[in-house]
């Protein structure tokens, strides 16, 4: 197959990039591993408050529908159930659906493979019934199946607490949030208040010493402030956080950098969202773990850059659009975490000399202290 633009990943970043690119007359293919588009939006029932101004505040599931539906009349080919498995010598990308492998020749590629959840480990973490917090959310909100009756959550970031709330709303008995630190990591007051009112015990300075059971998890022992407590539990949700998915970038020979605040190792990229391998762009959580607003904006920046390099937008127009998008990204991302945006600028500066010139307006706008 041949195309102007190949997008790897049909989550929010991939879908939004496809829309922006195809709206500029770019022939686009989106490859997605799953049986339906939307990525992690498919199970997000919480209201998204940090979206770019072009989107109304809404929940993930409806945003997913919007992002998919508006591709209908555009020149976008969707290859669902197809996974990028590698590359050919001549740079073509191989995707497979389990029955055959198709080489795709693309002028430009945007990789939006997102992030993966990390794991806390303890004896017994491999038992059925122990899963990532994201998996529990998928089972509950996308599959409409109760993942367990009596649950604990290990870790207390905002996402873990939010899913904890959703578990309770669906009738699961949440018997504790286990946090290793001496305070909660998450800071959304509303969610914390909900959990408190629901009577969920918060165990700080605590960790799981063991999960056990015959065939599946039945019992968990936690260490709380040095003393052990046994709990009858059939669902253990691990909420450690996210890290960018790196595999496609390594296969595409992209250089990596380490930025703790963006989730660890990730591909280097410029203010165009182009990686060290020419014509390979990155967007979304793969470019650093962030909120949904920034995920969509990085996708738009990448798509504009692709449009520019394919001659569908003139340099001036593209530059101005990118500056506006970076400004909005700055505001949306720093509202959540200043450190993330700083990390992003640091990453780009280490890769590209003229970041400050590229983002001139942003830096002139009293933001300069970055």
């Amino acid at each position: 197959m041949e195309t102007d633009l190949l997008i790897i990943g049909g989550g929010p970043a991939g879908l939004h990039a496809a829309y922006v690119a195809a709206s500029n007359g770019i022939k686009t293919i989106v490859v997605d591993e799953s049986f339906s588009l939307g990525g992690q939006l498919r199970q997000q029932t919480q209201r998204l408050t940090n979206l770019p101004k072009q989107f109304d505040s809404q929940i993930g599931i409806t945003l997913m529908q919007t992002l998919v539906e508006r591709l209908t009349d555009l020149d976008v080919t969707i290859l669902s159930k197809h996974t990028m498995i590698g590359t050919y010598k001549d740079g073509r990308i191989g995707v497979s659906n389990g029955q055959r492998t198709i080489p795709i020749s693309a002028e430009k590629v945007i990789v939006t493979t997102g992030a993966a959840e990390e794991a806390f480990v303890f004896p017994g973490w491999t038992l059925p019934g122990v899963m990532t917090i994201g998996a529990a959310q998928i089972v509950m909100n996308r599959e409409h199946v109760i993942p367990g009756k009596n649950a604990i959550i290990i870790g207390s970031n905002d996402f873990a607490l939010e899913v904890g709330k959703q578990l309770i709303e669906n009738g699961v008995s949440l018997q504790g949030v286990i946090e290793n630190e001496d305070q909660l990591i998450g800071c959304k007051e509303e969610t914390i208040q909900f959990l408190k009112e629901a009577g969920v015990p918060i165990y700080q300075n605590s960790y799981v010493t063991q999960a056990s059971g015959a065939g599946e998890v039945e019992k968990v022992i936690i260490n709380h402030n040095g003393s052990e407590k046994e709990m009858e539990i059939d669902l253990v949700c691990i909420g450690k956080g996210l890290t960018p998915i790196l595999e496609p970038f390594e296969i595409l020979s992209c250089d990596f950098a380490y930025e703790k605040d963006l989730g660890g190792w990730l591909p280097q990229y410029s203010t165009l969202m182009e990686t060290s391998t020419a014509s390979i762009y990155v967007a979304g959580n793969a470019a650093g773990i962030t909120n949904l607003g920034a995920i969509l904006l990085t996708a738009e920046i990448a798509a504009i850059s692709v449009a520019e390099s394919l001659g569908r937008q003139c340099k001036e127009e593209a530059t101005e659009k990118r500056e506006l998008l970076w400004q909005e990204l700055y505001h949306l991302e720093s509202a959540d975490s200043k450190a993330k945006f700083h990390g992003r600028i640091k990453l780009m500066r280490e890769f590209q000399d003229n970041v400050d010139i590229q983002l001139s307006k942003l830096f002139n706008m009293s933001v300069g202290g970055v």
Partner: protein
Amino acid sequence: MAKQYDVVVIGSGVVGSSIAFHLSEGGQKEILVIDKDYPLSGTSGSTQAWVWVHNKTPSWYGELSMLSAELYPFLERKIGDVEYKRTGGIAPFFNESDRESALRLAEKQAEVGIEIDVLTRDQVLEKEPALSPNIAGATFSKIDGNVNPFRLVELYIRAAKKNRVQFSFYNPVIDIKRDKGIFEITTKKEVFRAKQLVLAAGPWTKGVGKLLGVDIPVKQVRGQILVTEPLAPLIKHTIGGMRQADNGEVLIGYSKEEVGYDRRTTLDVIQDTAKMAVEYLPDLAKANIVRCFAGVRVIPNDGQPILGEIPTIDNAYVAVMHSGITLSPLVGTVMTELLIQGETSIDCDKLRLDRFSEFKSYV
């Protein structure tokens, strides 16, 4: 003052670590092995690890391979279980017209004592029912087998360490000088001195040779290998092109590309190799490939091992060859004889570096 050793070996792959281990068996010498990375990070860790004899030609080369394969059971008694299995080797052919050259091969190899059976299609399928009914026949020899390369190198090193061999890892050699007959080896971490120096750095020997002022005439050849998920027992023999490891994984691959030190895999070769896999073993179609890897092999310009003294530099030696896994027990033994007694128990003249007409030394 830099620490001085009797012998410094550069390269801790299967060849370097075998030489160090065999040398250390006498116990008299102070030995150091230097590696730019960690054992198994290079060629020895990215191989199918056949101990393969029967169609190594010319026949004197087959004979060396056979002698080495015969040493493996004794080696295991000394260093431990390296999962050496003399499975027998099958090299299938698909056209009846190949039978004649198979018979010629058998005749030639018989002269040096390598026993080869030229099998009919039915005989092959009886031995190895999973092979494709489309094959015409195969050459077969009992002497072939395979080994776990990870265990092999690890156990060579463990045994060498027990004999007080020193190892310096993650430590590239930057420069080599000679001062009053003593080698002065500058590495990233420190400077070592050595009375005798052995270059055993596989495909990287060319670069190390340059530091010493010698051109080692070798090429780098990339081989890509596919690994299946562990499968229930499927094949018993080492088949030219694939083998099944102890844990059930089937390793498949027989590609060659001259692309320097580039160790990336490509879907072009992966797909070609998959095709070969099902041509040989149709049942493999259902198996999942979980990973592919590429190794940079070293191939001397004329294909044969380069082993022995470096003619223009006293006390400098080289041991570089394509089939390091097959030959490592023999090479370790022979190099030990050479370094200690100055001569070898088997004739190694054909392996000398100065057999190459273009042999160059800048010294």
